[in-house]
């Protein structure tokens, strides 16, 4: 259907001049009562929105007419106070002078104000011509319109009056991007297509996984953070340890492949909230590997246990290894592999550990430049026998660039002490920093000052699960030998270790890394000192997991107010993780 434009060209010219002046001084999109209307160039009516994508904050505009059209001064408007002229945006492809059938793709985030993003849930977007006076309430200047998510969006009445939309109550219901399938005369929801839920990849929401009694992983997607109880009893079950994400980037979780085949997979969440394997990286060797880290859109790092003296560089988009870094120049006490990567600029700090069981007596970082593919050096700190604590994500480095190393000790060897060490910002070498959180939290716990997990925050702060309680049975053992731990027999030491493990001895504490103090976070229950724990920062709050005999839950902790409270219970198994799809770790 073509719109009728009875007004004269001279009148349109006059109105255009006046409108340009007014638009320059005060754009009137927000003033619904702006009065006058004017004739427009008939060719402009064939300029159509053809793709609207709230998930990518982009849209496509195509000239479906038979004459070239310059849309430089067209306006986008989401409603009162939300508008901007197209010339303020960057074109991803094409330009604003549209030849016949030509399309321009606009990056909305490039606009400095007005329409810089499209609402994910619902919205109405109008495309206005400024062939004359711009008045968003004027049906005559609406060139095209689309509303999604729900009815009666801003400007839909004008769009319907101008026959640029079919009905105020009709809207696109489905997953973006929304694509126009009609011709130049077609308007309304029936000419807009959505993406099948299976083809959608959600970029926001949360994944929670728990361990079932058999050790399988039970996984479920939540579009928003749960309240009350996160019920995973209808989640997806993967085999044991085959869904433990190592990293998140651009909404994709990077993990060992869920069929246990020894490859890595990147897994997205489709529109139905189901996990979908979007790519597989098959390692050259057959050794199961668990260390993978995405740096940016085109660069990721992984370690293949079958190639201990290498770091592999891969492209996350293609999931193909396209480079290897020879790390054989690095010093190792014996056969080794890498446990975790810390990304610092263009360099990766790779933490060295024994290839199989046992420990090294020193902590070693091998350092390489992953842009040039060169080994650049190493640093080490004499810790004594150590296993180190590696939480999910890129957490060993804080905002200031300090790299913190949580040394877990080695309880079955000689080292019962967990400590924290540091490679300070601006240096590539360890300094002499050493801090024992459990002793700071409870100076009386000399026997077993162990830390279960440390999560580093900004401003030299961290939260940690440390053993703060000494079980009564251990106290009895100590009293039986005169209070001197040195008098304990090996069997008594084993009994004490067992008690520390099976009883609820651990608490979350907040650490001041600079002052080397530890403050118990009040409001959180005790849990096992070596319970599987998880920490996440979401919306300015710290989410701390609790796995105890009475509950599986996440609590929030506000580092500013020092307040902690339960966020939600988790039902279905013991907590493994909480992953925010919108964050790149």
């Amino acid at each position, binding site marked *: 259907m073509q719109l009728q434009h009875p007004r004269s060209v001279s009148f349109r010219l006059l109105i255009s001049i006046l409108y340009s002046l007014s638009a320059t001084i005060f754009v009137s999109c927000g003033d619904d009562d702006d009065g006058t209307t004017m004739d427009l160039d008939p060719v402009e009516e064939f300029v159509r929105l053809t793709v609207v994508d709230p998930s990518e904050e982009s849209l496509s505009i195509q000239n479906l007419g038979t004459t070239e059209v310059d849309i430089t001064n067209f306006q986008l408007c989401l409603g009162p106070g939300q508008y901007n002229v197209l010339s303020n945006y960057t074109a991803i492809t094409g330009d604003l002078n549209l030849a016949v059938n030509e399309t321009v793709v606009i990056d909305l985030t490039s606009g400095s104000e007005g329409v810089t993003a499209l609402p994910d849930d619902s919205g109405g977007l109008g495309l206005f011509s400024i062939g004359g006076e711009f008045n968003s309430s004027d049906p005559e200047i609406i060139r095209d319109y689309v509303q999604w998510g729900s009815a009666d969006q801003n400007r839909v009445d004008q769009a319907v009056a101008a026959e640029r939309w079919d009905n105020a109550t009709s809207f696109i219901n489905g997953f973006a991007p929304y694509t126009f399938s009609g011709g130049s005369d077609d308007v309304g929801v029936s000419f807009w297509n959505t993406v099948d839920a299976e083809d959608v990849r959600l970029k926001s929401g949360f994944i929670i996984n728990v361990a079932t009694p058999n050790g399988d992983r039970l996984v479920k997607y939540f579009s928003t953070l749960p309240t009350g109880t996160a019920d995973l009893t209808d989640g997806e079950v993967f085999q044991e340890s085959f869904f433990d994400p190592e990293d998140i980037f651009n909404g994709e979780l990077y993990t060992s492949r869920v069929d246990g085949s020894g490859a890595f997979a990147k897994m997205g969440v489709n529109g139905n909230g189901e996990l979908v394997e979007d790519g597989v990286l098959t390692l050259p060797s057959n050794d199961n590997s668990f260390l993978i880290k995405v740096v940016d859109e085109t660069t990721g790092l992984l370690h293949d246990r079958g190639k201990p003296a290498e770091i592999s560089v891969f492209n996350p988009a293609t999931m193909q290894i396209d480079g290897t870094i020879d790390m054989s120049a690095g010093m190792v006490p014996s056969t080794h592999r890498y446990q975790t990567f810390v990304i610092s600029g263009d360099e990766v700090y790779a933490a060295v550990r024994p290839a199989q069981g046992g420990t090294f007596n020193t902590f070693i970082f091998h350092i390489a430049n992953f842009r040039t593919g060169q080994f650049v050096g190493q640093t080490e700190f004499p810790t004594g026998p150590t296993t180190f*604590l590696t939480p999910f994500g890129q957490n060993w480095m804080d905002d200031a660039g300090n790299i913190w190393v949580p040394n877990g000790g080695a309880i079955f060897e000689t080292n019962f002490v967990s400590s924290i060490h540091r490679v300070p910002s601006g240096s590539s070498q360890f300094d002499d920093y050493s801090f024992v959180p459990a002793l700071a939290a409870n100076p009386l716990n000399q026997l077993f000052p162990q830390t279960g997990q440390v999560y580093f925050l900004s401003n030299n702060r961290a939260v940690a699960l440390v053993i703060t309680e000494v079980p009564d049975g251990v106290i009895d053992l100590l009293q039986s030998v005169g209070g001197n731990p040195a008098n304990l027999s090996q069997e008594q030491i084993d009994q004490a270790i067992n008690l520390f493990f099976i009883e609820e001895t651990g608490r979350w504490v907040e650490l001041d890394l600079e002052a080397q103090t530890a403050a118990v976070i009040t409001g959180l229950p005790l849990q096992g000192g070596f319970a599987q724990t998880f920490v996440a920062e979401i919306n300015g709050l710290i989410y701390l997991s609790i796995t105890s005999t009475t509950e599986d839950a996440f609590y929030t902790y506000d580092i500013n107010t020092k307040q902690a409270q339960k966020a939600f219970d988790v039902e279905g198994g013991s907590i493994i993780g909480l992953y925010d799809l919108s964050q790149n770790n």
Partner: protein
Amino acid sequence: MNFNTAALIAVLSFNCLLAGAADITGGVFDSTTKKPLPGATLIIVGTNLGAVTDENGRYAIQDIDPGVYVLEISSLGFKRITREIRLEKKTSRIRIDFSLEESVAELDAIIVRGESEASVIEQEPIRVSAIDTKELRIQSIGAADVLKTTTGVVVRRSGGLGSTADVQLNGLSGQAVRIFYDGMPLEFLGGGFDLTNLPVSVIERVEVYKGVVPINIGTDALAGAINIVPKSLYTDLVEASYQFGSFNTHMASIIANKKISDRFAVSLNAFHNFSDNDFQMEGIPNKTVVDSIPDRFGNGFQLVFEDVPIDNARRFNNRHRSTFGELGIHLRDMNWADELSLYTTYSTRFDEDQHGFRIDAVAVGDANRSSNGFTHRLKYTKALFNNKLRFKYHGVFAHGEQSAEDASLFEYNWFGEVINELDELAGEISGSATRITVDRLSQAHRINTTYEFSNNHAIKFSNFYSRLEIEGEDELGLRVDIGGELIDPNEFPSTLITNISGLEWNGKWLKNQKLNTILFGKYYYYDANATDVQSTVRTDNLQLRTVNEETLGYGAGIKYSFTDDLFIRASFESAYRLPTDLELFGNFLGVFPNYEIRPEQSDNFNVGINWKKRCKNNFFIKTSINGFLINTEDLIWAQPFGQEGSRFENNRDTQTLGLEWSTEIRPDQYSRLVINITDQERTYQGFEASSQSQGATFIGTAFPNTPFFFYNLQLALGAKSLRQIYPNIQLYASLFHTQEFSITDIPANGDPLPQNLIPTQDEVNVGLGYTTDNEKLSSSVQVNNVLNSFDLFDNFRIPKPNRNIQLKITYKLL
């Protein structure tokens, strides 16, 4: 299907019930000593009617139509006799006693007819299935195949002859099921043979004790016990068999026995197996180079790999080779011994490993295992005080060596091609290279004593003692730093001593001993000694660790016989399963020790009804329905422990509830149909306090990797009409059906993912057997997986062999 089967049985039973019949009862005695002869065989010539005397020498043959018959009576070491018997129409029951004279040779006496030993065992008050292999001996099968033809048993293997087998009994598996060879736990017999490589030719029968295990068999089994009873002869016999077939499979066995005198015999029992096991598999992911792309640092090209599914994967590192030889010397009827047998066994085996627990895109091409060892056994029996006191001893000394090599410089695809060369040796299955040899020195002694106060009451005492010493060496494995010296922790010896004593009272009550009761108690004790490696590392001094524990179990059984053909029984046992050395001491490879671990405990309840009927026209039907409930507490289970690693803990309870139905129908003496159906459910019931919250929502849900509905049909067809034309031919077929089940936990409100499901499976095997008139030569051809289904799986979706053919020839020289 269930309805149709029931209807068929009902119709056949009705036909059977129309016939009237008489019974013959009595006893068989030694003509010289006047002692009763247990195990004597009585058959009515020309029929399949017959009986075997019980331990008091008594017998009963039922449902004999009026007419004139020849009754043949035989017993090992005694002359066979025949007697004509005339049964008038009005005769309902006659009693005849027989006396047998000692004989020099009595070959046919070993052929059990009528009421076999297996059938006698099945009538115990406790729930037990016994599979007589006599009718299976011409088939191309092994012990594991025999085992899975009974109810409630699932045998899952990792592929082909000799491959690792996991036996699941009433929903429980692993250490909960104990396997015995001739009453002795397999782990004390050198390691060269097990369920997977024992040919049927050397087996007399397989006894399956479900739930409740009698004191003379059991050690510390929870779910039950499986006893493989080898052929034991006291006559002249040489029987050889040779089987060959697909996948270059060859199995040869020989049983030879020479009776030197009435009191002295020698025997040989041997087999040799070989198979390439190179069967084909479909849908296997295969690591494949699909592209090469430029290196981003300018160092040439990087190969791009993908796991490409292929339908022609062939197992190429899957050979099995095993040899077993056992020499026996047998004395009997000595003043100081009724029977004394000495056995010396040598066994050796070699197995290649094609994959780990699961199949992935890279084939294992070099890993292998081997074992060999000598075993010496002594069996002694003596009856005193007019046979009222019977004493049995069975002892074994074994020295075995087990090796495993998992170290390779290569990686292989599923075409057997090298796709990657490594810089250093790596483990193909385990996380790191290993080349371990373990020396196992073991001994076990079992004493069974029975004293009969009267014909109706007896008391039994049993004691089982075992000692296992293990010492090893892994030339590629972990080294621990003790005082600056790097030590292989496998070099530290460990010992495990177990002692289980049992006291049992058997009672027979009411007229005709209609009521049988068993009451028993068991005393469990174990003592484990090992080097506490972690403490040794801490102190730089050798730290020994001893763990011991004792506990009591008990049980009871009751059986009531309404008639000789119909009885009900119920039994209960509170049983324990003791921790293994791995569960106690760990393995230096991520499994930490737990010196506080407790034995697993289970309460087993069983109830069942058995009915059989034999008719004038040789029609025979036998059916039984059994229910069981097993509550298992303190299940030993590996849990994550420490920053990494795992530890075995007692942290969950389960319940298994099941119903079994078994029916055997013999329309005539040549044909047989056996149907075994099992419907069971194993569920989580609780978790220990420290893990209470972790699994609370799973209470009541299915325990993973446990089939819940399965049945098998065994058909041997030699119908009368067929036999008249082809008198020496038998057709046989079997069907094994297993309903779909999940290998992972299933959440309370969820469904298992498709990739975690083992689909419904139907395995069909058929065969054709031929036996000469004198029964000296028999042969068979058997087609396994005749439907050539590629959807048959063993453990964790490992494909079973595709269609294959096996030929077997058995020849009796004497």
